[in-house]
Structure formats: C-alpha cells, structure tokens
C-alpha cells in the first residue's frame, strides 16, 4: 500500500512535468531566451508549483509527522557557502546548454527518446564525478538537498 501511494505521488509529479513543458528542452531554453524566441510558460509552472507547495507545506508541516512516519526530513542549514553558489552556477550553465534539468529529464525517460536517455546517462556520470570531486558519500548529499 505504502509503495502504491509513493508510486502515485511520483506519477502525479511525472504527469505535471509532462504537461507543463519542463520536460521539453525547446520550451525550457526559450524561457531563458529573453532576447530571442521568449516563451514565458515556465514562469507559470514555477508559479503554480510554488503557490500549491507554499500553502500545502504550511498545512502538512503542522501535523505531528508524515503518514508513513517517523518524522519530516527537512534541511536545516541556512548559511550560504561557495559549494551552494558555485554548484548552482555550474548547474545553471549545464541547464542552459542542454535544456534538461533533473526533474524534467527523469519523467521524460518515459518517452523513451534517445536524447533523454543520453542526458540522464551523462548526468549520472556527472553526479558520480561530482561526488568524487567532493570526496563525500552520497548520504551527505541527500540529507542536505
């Protein structure tokens, strides 16, 4: 039952990404192309997602804990550091070159298109390389993200 619910949550995310245009690099890159073929659609994706999550979190995080327990796993750091900013710059450059972000590309795998498989494969190599550079086990990454 638990895994059915988790699958359905992933499915809702995947459908949202699919119809929003986040899985479509042509639309993603056009959103950032203010000087050319600008397509403001992605502002609506971010806006819709943010409003729902902002109010939804307010409600959910007031509860004693998640349905499947034991507690909410929330990042607690509030300081800014070079890794956060530098990593964001590198991510942004990559997003601008390829047009896929992780949340857009993972659901897009379901289309079976070669370009998506190529992107996700290379991204996984990039994550492994990043962890090697950071010289940290993956557990640190997920607890911070």
């Amino acid at each position, binding site marked *: 039952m638990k895994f059915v619910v*988790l699958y359905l949550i992933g499915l809702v995310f*995947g459908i949202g990404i699919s119809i929003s245009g986040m899985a479509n690099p042509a639309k993603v890159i056009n959103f950032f192309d203010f000087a050319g073929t600008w397509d403001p659609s992605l502002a609506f994706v971010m806006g819709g997602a943010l409003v729902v999550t902002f109010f939804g979190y307010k409600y959910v995080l007031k509860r004693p804990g998640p349905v499947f327990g034991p507690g909410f796993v929330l990042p607690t750091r509030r300081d800014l550091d070079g890794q956060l900013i530098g990593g964001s710059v590198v991510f*942004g450059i990559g*997003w601008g070159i390829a047009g896929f972000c992780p949340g857009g590309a993972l659901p897009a795998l379901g289309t079976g298109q070669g370009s998506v498989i190529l992107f996700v494969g290379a*991204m996984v190599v990039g*994550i492994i390389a990043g962890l090697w550079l950071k010289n940290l086990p993956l557990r640190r990454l997920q607890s911070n993200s």
Partner: protein
Amino acid sequence: METVFTPWQSLGGGALIGIASVMLMGFAGRIMGATGILAGFMQPASKEDWAWRAAVLAGMVSGPLAVMLFTGQMPAVEVPVTPVMIVVGALLVGVGVTFSSGCTSGHGVCGMARLSPRSIAATATFMLATTVTVFVLRHVIGA
C-alpha cells in the same frame, strides 16, 4: 525554434508538481527534489531507503505514458541542441547539483516554498547562470 505559449497547461502542470511535493512531504516526510531522490537511489542508506525512492522514480517515468493514455500522444520532447551539447550540459548538471545539493524541484519549488535562504540563493543563481548561458550560446556564439 519558436514554441507555443501554454499558460494554462503550464499552470496546471505546475500545480500537479506542487500537489506531488506536498503529498511526498505529508506521506513520507521527504522533499520532492529530483536530485536528492536520484542521488539517494544511486547509493541508498538502506533497503527501505532505496525502495521508496524506486517507487517515486517509477511513478515519475510513468508520467508521459499516463499523458499518452489520456490525450493519445506522448508529451513533446523537442531538443534544439546537438548530442554533444546534451552530454556536456548533462555532465555540468550532474556535477553542479551535487555541489548545490539540489535543482529546480528541490531548491526552486520545495526549498523556495519553505522560504529557505539557501534555496532562494541557489534558485536565483542558477536562473541567472542559465539566462546568461542561453544568451551567450544563441546571441553571441550563435549556436
């Protein structure tokens, strides 16, 4: 390459992304961040930790198939760049999100919704970096 402005579809899709984020927090107590979920899937802390991530990822990948069931066609994935650019971009995305501990979903949606200073700074930074990159590639180099 021109794309059609789709405010309603994008708003609806964004709302679904938000609903999924709220539900993952409400049921599993976790941030709906593609980077964090994938990284933990690649090196899970336990069998249980791997299993919930596998279930969510399987649901994500089923998204386009569900859309095809409803609408009769797969969502468009148009790639206006070369395979070399996909690989270079993907490598940078992988390295970058590892250091920034999150991407558009984790920082841009979930972290921003919690008004996390780190997520707001990360999102502002990568949006600016992406804008500059697209400008340079399309209008300076002309790729």
